[in-house]
């Protein structure tokens, strides 16, 4: 009798399923968050109510529990939606659904055979939001909210490793805003910050979601373009150059600033084995772009 009360009072969802994955028990927590009462769902397949669970991973987990008697740990990091419930807290607003960790384990008879399995569902939305915050802090630049140098360098190493193994091409662009020091001197550092933030926003929009755009330091930015040959990288760089050239940066109503950007492009080839190699190559091209009068794209390929 007391056990029955605990079953309904604990702050986790408990579901008991039979071998056909029909619901046997559905505790109060599940009733509250699903708006489905135990009377309605009992005896019916869990998939009738949650077709999103009829997947390879969920079936795989249940089958392994029935055959091996092990416990499956389904984490929110791998499985974004288990039971699509609304988040409970009014203060965590970055997720549309409650983040859940779910444990699936066996329930045994007296003779040790497994006749049922249990699902234990915990709300980990708050923890997931902290995780996301921590990850962002470690990988994003505080001012521009694009990736930081550390993340960029890790990704660049991975990309070089991948390219060594599978021989796929990727390109790198290094950007340097022309005469940025003059902006700071003339309009102040807050205006400079505004330029950096807006520049990052404009460039991000012109890139693809697979590109990794980062602030390298000061007014220098860089971008990894996976699966991109040199010619295509130059086209993308030129598109960015034109967009920046024609943009009027409106810091304040009466402070409108124009800037231009110089870019160096390099593409992986058989002589490049480290991240320093490919950065140096793009850097040299960037230097050429500066010395040839700025506001232009130079690719390492043209002078090699």
């Amino acid at each position, binding site marked *: 009798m007391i056990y029955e009360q605990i079953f309904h009072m604990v702050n986790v969802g408990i579901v008991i399923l039979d071998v056909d994955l029909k619901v046997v028990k559905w505790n109060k927590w599940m009733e509250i968050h699903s708006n489905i009462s135990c009377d309605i769902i009992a005896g019916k397949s869990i998939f009738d109510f949650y077709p999103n669970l009829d997947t390879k991973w969920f079936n795989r987990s249940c089958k392994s529990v029935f055959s091996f008697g092990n416990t499956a740990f389904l984490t929110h990091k791998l499985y974004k939606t288990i039971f699509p419930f609304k988040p409970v807290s009014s203060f965590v607003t970055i997720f549309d659904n409650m983040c859940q960790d779910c444990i699936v384990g066996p329930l045994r008879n007296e003779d*040790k055979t497994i006749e049922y399995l249990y699902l234990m569902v915990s709300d980990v939305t708050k923890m997931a939001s902290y995780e996301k915050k921590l990850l962002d802090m470690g990988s994003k630049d505080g001012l521009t909210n694009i990736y930081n140098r550390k993340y960029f360098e890790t990704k660049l190493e991975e990309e070089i490793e991948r390219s060594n193994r599978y021989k796929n091409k990727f390109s790198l662009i290094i950007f340097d805003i022309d005469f940025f020091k003059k902006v700071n001197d003339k309009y102040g550092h807050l205006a400079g910050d505004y330029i950096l933030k807006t520049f990052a926003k404009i460039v991000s929009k012109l890139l693809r979601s697979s590109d990794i755009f980062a602030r390298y330091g000061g007014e220098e930015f860089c971008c990894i373009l996976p699966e991109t040959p040199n010619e295509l990288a130059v086209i993308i760089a030129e598109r960015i150059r034109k967009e920046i050239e024609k943009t009027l940066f409106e810091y304040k109503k009466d402070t409108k600033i124009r800037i231009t950007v110089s870019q160096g492009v390099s593409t992986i080839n058989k002589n490049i084995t480290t991240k320093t190699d490919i950065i140096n190559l793009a850097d040299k091209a960037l230097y050429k772009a500066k010395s040839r009068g700025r506001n232009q794209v130079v690719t390492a390929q043209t002078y090699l």
Partner: protein
Amino acid sequence: MNTDKNEIFTQDQKDVLQEIMNIAFGNATAELSEIIDIYVVLSVPDIKTINSENLDLYVNNLIDLKKNTKIIEQKFFGEYNGAGLLIFPDINNDEIVTLLDYSDTDSIDYLEQVPVNEILIEIGNILIGACIGKITDLLDTYVTYSPPDIFSSDTSNKFCFSCNTDKDKTGLVMKTTFTFNGKNIEGLLLLLASNDSFDWLKKALDKFMESYL
């Protein structure tokens, strides 16, 4: 390593354990391929007793720690208790995502990067659970499991399997190598039985032996 403790198990008991492991691993790999679409090949296990103090040294000697080394650890509790260690000496992210079918998940991913550690934890959970599950079936018992944890040499500094156990205790190590069919991925699976369960294990092995006499 500590050969003087070898008499904990009689030769007969060791032979039975070897046989049980062979049957259990055979059953585990068969069911993994039938039910979960994981095609794994496990080698004939090697069994030895090791003092817990020497366990880290033993693991260190087995593998050459690289940037891509990953170790998944899962503890299990019951009459039979200990830990499973699944060791990938050198695996890269592109290989990891091919291990299990994630085609119908919606989740790779809000973290904007593939959660490789989570995938390995799931693999570890399945492989360790399958092997331990089949061994415990044969020994007529069952265990419960802790959530698996992962050691990744690019983020953790060191591992210490002996840190949380008494230094003078002996463990039983069952070592096997595994490969995934059609994939260039191999590793080591260590199943450690702690000496709390030795008395029970010896009885269970004798009982298993009797049933075949």
